[in-house]
């Protein structure tokens, strides 16, 4: 009996040794696998498809140009994990990509609520994770393998408020007071809180921040309350359905602020523009990417044209963000000369890109570096305005469309 136990232990030990010993040296991988955690089905599948398009184009480019040169021309293979837009599915898909598909790095997960727990899974398995998702706390957990090159909620809120104040100074009437209407889930609460802080810092009186129940059937009371304080500025942080309802009910209840701004979310989705038509004219919003960036940075215009030719649509804010994450991984792979997780992670952490013509600068900043939390401190956002059913890029001045003029006040043409 004792003897049998010993034999089993020996066999197990040998098996263990065999799995530890890797016949191919890490540096000579013939294929690099990048896991993509995205909503490919479910209510947000449209976004997942756009992300897949952008990444497919980027990966095809790298492979056609001879793969990763420092790895002897290793080709890149994208492996997709479908989150269905659900947090728990995102986590299990992330684990599958890591343990079964053995991906070397990950990009994900579009919704912050999905990316937050999924990136924790990547951290646990020590696989580098490039975030798309703006929730601040994703990079504030002391993780070593989680990075975010683009703006977080704080940066987006700051850009929106600074942009509003700057644009308001050049127009009249200026903004003296504001109300913030935000939906009451995690995103709305955290982003409205930050907007209040930046507004007060800019000397704008914030009458109140109201958190309304998400997907409410009626929001008249909210609008009536706002109307009572006669704000110059209404900021709304809403998902699409609420954004439609608020915009219509503001019109019905004759709440016509000087400026109507949105923290992102529903107000910047194509469906909003299509459905609201004239009522959307003059709404200002924060975003991280818009095709108009190409007017200031020529290669971006060309890259976007290629994307349009291939897929019939421009990059979106999120697909551009996924593309950026992909290029950061490629850049790090070239420098790391290996796919080993630890060294790849260190190479990503040492990213230092200042050339605006680098492909990782599809979302252009002064610099692309990561601080010790994994966030790019130099990331910025931009302010766009809906004019005639299209977005015009107005702020910051350095990348604004030269021929774009701000529409001021809100509904200037129809009021």
């Amino acid at each position, binding site marked *: 009996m004792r003897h049998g136990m010993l034999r089993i232990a020996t066999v197990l030990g040998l098996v263990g040794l065999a799995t530890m010993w890797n016949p191919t040296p890490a540096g000579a991988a013939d294929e690099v696998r990048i896991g993509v955690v995205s909503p490919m089905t479910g209510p947000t599948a449209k976004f997942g498809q756009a992300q897949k398009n952008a990444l497919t184009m980027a990966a095809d480019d790298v492979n056609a140009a001879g793969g990763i040169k420092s790895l002897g021309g290793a080709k890149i293979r994208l492996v997709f994990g479908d989150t269905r837009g659900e947090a728990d599915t995102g986590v299990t898909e992330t684990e599958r990509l890591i343990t079964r598909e053995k991906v070397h790095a990950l990009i994900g997960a579009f919704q912050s609520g999905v990316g937050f727990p999924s990136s924790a899974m990547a951290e646990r398995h020590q696989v580098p994770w490039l975030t798309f998702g703006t929730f601040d706390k994703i990079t504030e957990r002391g993780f070593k393998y989680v990075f975010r090159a683009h703006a977080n909620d704080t940066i987006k809120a700051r850009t929106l408020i600074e942009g509003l104040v700057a644009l308001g100074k050049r127009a009249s009437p200026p903004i003296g007071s504001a109300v913030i209407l935000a939906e009451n889930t995690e995103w709305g609460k955290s982003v409205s809180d930050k907007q209040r802080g930046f507004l007060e810092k800019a000397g704008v009186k914030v009458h109140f921040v109201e958190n309304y129940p998400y997907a409410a059937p009626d929001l008249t009371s909210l609008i009536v309350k706002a109307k009572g304080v006669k704000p110059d500025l209404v900021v709304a942080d809403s998902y699409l359905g609420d954004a439609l309802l608020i915009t219509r009910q503001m019109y019905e209840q004759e709440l016509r602020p000087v400026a109507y701004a949105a923290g992102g979310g529903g107000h910047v989705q194509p469906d909003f523009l299509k*459905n609201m038509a004239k009522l959307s004219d003059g709404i200002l919003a924060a975003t991280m990417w818009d095709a108009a960036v190409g007017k200031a940075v020529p290669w971006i215009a060309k890259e976007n044209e290629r994307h349009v030719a291939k897929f019939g649509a421009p990059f979106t804010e999120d697909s551009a963000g996924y593309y950026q994450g992909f290029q950061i991984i490629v850049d790090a792979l070239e420098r790391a000369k290996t796919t080993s997780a630890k060294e790849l992670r260190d190479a990503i952490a040492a990213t230092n890109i200042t050339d605006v013509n680098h492909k990782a600068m599809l979302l252009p900043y002064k610099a692309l570096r990561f601080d010790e939390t994994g966030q790019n401190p130099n990331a910025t956002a931009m302010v766009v305005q809906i004019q005639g059913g299209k977005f015009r890029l107005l702020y910051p001045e350095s990348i604004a469309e030269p021929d774009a003029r701000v529409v001021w006040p809100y509904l200037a043409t129809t009021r």
Partner: protein
Amino acid sequence: MRGLAQAATSGLLIGAVYGLIALGLNIVFGTMRVVNFAQGTLLMAGMFLTYWLWELGGVHPYISPLVTVPLLFGLGFAIQHLFVSPLLARERAREPMSVLLLTLGLALVLENVALLFFSADFKTVTTDVSMQTFKTAGLIVSVPRLVGLGAMIATSLGLYLFFMHTDLGRAVRATGQDREVARLMGINDFRIYGVAYGLSAAMMGIAAAVLVPFFYIHPGVGTSFLLKAFVIVVLGGLGSMPGAALGGLLVGVIEGAVALWVQAAVAQIVLFAVFVAILFVRPAGLLGVERR
């Protein structure tokens, strides 16, 4: 004060829509003792029908009930006949739990089918009445929501006449009061259930017609209204038609007025607190009849 009057008025108007949905819920509950979780989904189906009629045929939402009401009645009757009745026949309990779960399953299936076919895009319909308002005594009244109140009153009256003065209506009430006795009196209870379910689905056609000009259309839209309708049905009295109508208006007004003083999300807490308090005093609901 004007703000309060404005909020209360708007609350009353949206409350009328809640009431319409609660009435539909109550017809099924009153006859079968089943809470129909698919009610919100039927409303969604009605809204998409209304939307496509407008988009493809140019049919004004206020005319669409001529088409959607019979269609939804047929759909409801079919659902009852194909899914609910076979289960109900086996379920002997007075309050059939498995049927309740079945309606929940149906709701999930229908909602996902809608997601598949209609996609998750939000749609709105802008008609001549959308965003129309008029002012009276300093109040801004939304025309499409006022139409909603009118439709709710008319539908309630129609239902009252149907239940009180037609043989079929009396048969529905009799089945609701006692299934076995009704059967002994020669009433085909399963046909009656079909009528009740169909009727309740058909009412969603009216609710949809009222909602479409001012609300958005989305596969998940029913959920927003269903929870409110549950509260209203219990508040007004399970199975009580006037209770559902009154409860709807009450909930709308409370919600609207309270939200003026506290955060809109807190107003929901107040609403549910009032709900619990009323049940504490009157367990059968405001207009409900105490059962043995």
